């Protein structure tokens, strides 16, 4: 049974250095000194970078979240204020709970609409109908755009007075200014890009799918829909896992489109924009922003742990 090679970033649980398969010896002692040195360097240098640039600042953020530091002056002048930042965030900081709600909405939209849409498009493109290369390119094109650029492009479409959508339909809807609908408008803009990304990942997986299985199914009388749900989908489990991970991470990390629109205010609050608004800029509420960032870390951890359990349970 052919399994698809993950062609995008590997799932976060991979720990073996790249290039080593089951055929080479695992023990370091059996390698010659040059190989051993190279191996150690290849493992140590990225580890130092990750620890230094990711873990230490993350721990630093968590520590700072218990202070009210404003970014100026000596580290020795920092005052610890305990859990006050956290209680403030949860009780008297108005944008926080709307931000949590919006993050969850973002996650749901990606999970229920745009990721399945991407997978569906991949299946269609995989059938190699006439012009499928054109479709493939045009669906994937938004992915190469930076989030900020996507936000800017959709601003031109969504602008209340000068935008294309209102001009074509003759409406006067304030897409980005109306707090009840702007989060949905932003999600559509994000989904436009996200769909192409998922489509390409799934397409890569589908290319590795053994056609013999599909033929076997059609011999047994299964239509294309049944074939997909009962054969293709389960067989592509590794690809599905990657896609799930990417969907989760992108949903919880959503930031640039919303920031470009209006810095995450007035209905477009997301936890990432709250962190940025507090930490970066003249506001410089580093302690408070770090508390928000720590809460974001906790929220993401809950989801990732939940997902890892599904993965591990499935593997057994």
């Amino acid at each position, binding site marked *: 049974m*052919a399994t698809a090679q993950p062609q995008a970033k590997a799932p976060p649980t991979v720990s073996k250095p790249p*290039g080593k398969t089951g055929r080479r010896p695992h023990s370091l002692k059996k390698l010659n000194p040059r190989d051993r040195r*190279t191996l150690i360097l290849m493992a140590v240098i990225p580890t130092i970078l990750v620890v230094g640039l990711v873990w230490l600042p993350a721990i630093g953020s968590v520590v700072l979240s218990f202070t009210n530091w*404003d*970014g*100026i*002056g000596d580290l020795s002048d920092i005052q610890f204020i305990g859990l*006050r930042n956290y209680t*403030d965030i949860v009780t*008297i*900081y*108005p*944008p926080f709970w709307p931000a949590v709600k919006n993050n969850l909405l973002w996650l749901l939209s990606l999970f229920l609409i745009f990721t399945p849409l991407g997978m569906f498009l991949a299946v269609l493109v995989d059938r190699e109908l006439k012009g499928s290369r054109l479709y493939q390119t045009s669906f994937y094109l938004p992915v190469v755009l930076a989030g900020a650029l996507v936000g800017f492009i959709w601003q031109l479409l969504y602008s*209340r*007075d000068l935008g294309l959508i209102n001009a074509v339909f003759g409406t006067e809807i*304030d*897409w*980005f*200014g*109306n*707090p009840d609908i*702007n989060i949905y408008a932003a999600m559509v803009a994000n989904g436009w890009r996200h769909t192409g990304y998922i489509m390409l990942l799934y397409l890569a997986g589908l*290319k*590795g*799918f*053994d*056609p013999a299985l599909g033929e076997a199914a059609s011999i047994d009388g299964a239509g294309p829909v049944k074939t997909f749900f009962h054969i293709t989908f389960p067989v592509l489990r590794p690809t599905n896992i990657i896609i799930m991970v990417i969907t989760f991470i992108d949903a919880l990390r959503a930031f640039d489109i919303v920031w470009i629109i*209006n*810095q995450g*205010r*007035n209905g477009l609050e997301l936890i990432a924009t709250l962190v940025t*608004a*507090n930490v*970066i*800029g*003249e*506001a*410089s*509420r580093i302690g*408070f922003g770090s508390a928000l960032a720590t809460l974001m870390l906790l929220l993401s951890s809950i989801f990732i742990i939940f997902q890892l359990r599904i993965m591990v349970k499935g593997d057994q």
Partner: protein
Amino acid sequence: MSHPKPALPLPSFTRRTLLQAALATAGTVGLSACGGGGTGGSAPTSKTLTMGAYQGDEVPRNAFKAMVEGYQGTAEPKINFVDHETFKNNINNYLQGNPDDVFTWFAGYRSRFFAKNGLVGDLSDIWADFKGFPESMKNASSTPDGKQVLVPSTYYPWGVFYRPSVWKKHGYTPPKDKAEWLALCEKMKGDQIVPMAFAAKGGWEPMGTFDQLNLRVNGYQFHVSLMDGAEAWDGEKVRNVFKAWDEFIPFQQSDALGRTWQEGAQSLLTEKTGMMVIGMFIGQQFAASKKADDLDFFMYPEFDPAIGTDAIEAPIDGFMMAAKPKNKDGAKDMLKYLATAGAVNRSLKIDSSVIGANSDASQETYSALQKKAVGVIAEAKNISQFLDRDTRPDFASTVVGPALQAYIKKPSDIDSILKNIEQQKKSIFG
């Protein structure tokens, strides 16, 4: 169709050689980046004077360039232009890292805060020789303990701006007090014009309206005290400000939360709206539309006869010196030049949406609007700077800005909004 795995098309290369080459390249690039970052771009001489400038839009940028061009001293100025919002947002890191010798900034809480934390240089010695700055300017440029840290350059008033040609056509006249103003709004509404253009997308625009109302309803001293965190936001006085604002809500442009001030100015130009509470920088939009002459303003009318209209909001922009400049003498020399009337005249020739802080600045090139602004400010007893310059920035941008937007979204929520501001204020100010 499953495809066979393609063979690596480079038979003479082993993977090992490729990886070694990649490591070598990465190492070289990394080392050169480390080395290059320290010295920066072109080799600086001892005469180079770095200047950080936040003029993002074209007109202010050209105005500043013209101003620096007139410098006759020995230092060689090198201007680093940065986008306005980016510069303001990164100011903390900028000052604690590697700031330029001289940089643009403004008067208010923040400049005093920098001085208190030792992030900017003391300019009291060159201030002693400055000519043309009234006492109010000197006070605005000083720290509480009397040291000057800012060289004022330009400023501009906030007021209610309108187009005289459109008003003449409909027979409108500037109102003197609140009752007249409300009547005028009714008249405009009857003429199918939205009386007040209104923008609130950035969160800071409604602060202008709040400041003006607070100055008129409660007076200058209360406003200063409120900005310092010494007054209750959910008290009766602030509540009265919003009671007054409620009366104007029916006359303000709807959907303000998605509108930028530039779009608001455009609505004035297309005669959709009658007037706008904004700063004189609206002139930049009018200049771009070639209607610069068709702009006038009136002072925010009187709301309480006991308080009158002697307070005006006029933010002051200027220059500061880094705490440890690389070229201290050059910096002070340049600042002495920038303080002169001659320097600001060069800037004003290009940017007519501001007026010179130096009273000796030539008024020859001033438009009627600028001359009026000079007169209005000269008559004012008290000058405030604008909410986000008068109070702590972490309070202004993260609390008051979103709160005002929430009020505009749903004015009836004002009581809970004010209570929440008060709670957050206590948490931030301590």
